[in-house]
């Protein structure tokens, strides 16, 4: 049989109807996707909250790294001869 005749056999393939439940399946799939989707406003809120948290953390870290000196407290300590070391007994 010639190739063209052979390929003409393909035209005998009958059309098949789509299954009746397909549309329900598609709708439930679309519905599932819609519930998973996060709206843009929520995404922006999450990003803003993240930036605020990061900023607060950075501010705290920078503050704690600065040397803490309190002249008033040092004056009281020297007047009362308080020890600032962990030694219990002075020699």
């Amino acid at each position: 049989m010639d190739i063209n005749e052979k390929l003409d056999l393909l035209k005998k393939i009958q059309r098949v109807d789509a299954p009746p439940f397909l549309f329900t399946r598609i709708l439930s799939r679309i519905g599932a996707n819609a519930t998973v989707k996060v709206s843009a406003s929520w995404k922006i809120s999450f990003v803003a909250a993240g930036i605020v948290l990061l900023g607060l953390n950075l501010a705290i870290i920078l503050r704690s790294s600065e040397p803490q000196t309190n002249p008033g407290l040092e004056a009281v300590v020297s007047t009362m001869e308080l020890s600032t070391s962990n030694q219990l007994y002075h020699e």
Partner: protein
Amino acid sequence: MKEDPPFESIYHEYKNLVFNVSLHYVLNREDAQDVAQEVFVKVYNNLSQFNPETASLKTWIYRITINQSLDSLKSKRTKKRFGFISSLFHADSNEPIAEAALVSHPGIPMEDKEAIEELVKIIYSLPENQKTAIILSKMEDRPQKEVAEIMNTTVKAVESLIQRAKQAIEKERKNREGF
């Protein structure tokens, strides 16, 4: 979930087209259902981006169906490749390994079943472009101009693809017959 009446009418107009084109690629009802489902989800999600000036709705749906069918075949092939390796570790697994040569196309008539099944098996193994050209022109019986539009190419290129596909089919047939 948003209500979209045009989507429902699109579905009813193109459901059989999408299902049959998918069936010609994947060759079984179950996979064709999965492909058709994915196609309509994509149509629903991208309907707002569809531009009628660049292509007709029918052409657009044909393209989505073809791409989805080819993706399905690719993932089947990958599954098959890794199926052997995973079967070494999960010997008790009952998951079926994708079977390229398994044909259960419900549209194939009984009287020419053997000859058509042999032919579709050969078409299944053709390169993607040749396969699409043959499916659209011979199985879907679309004119070459429309095939060219769907494939986003020229009529000459489609003619060439069909010619090369015919040669490949002929060669494969002779191999199978033992010439």
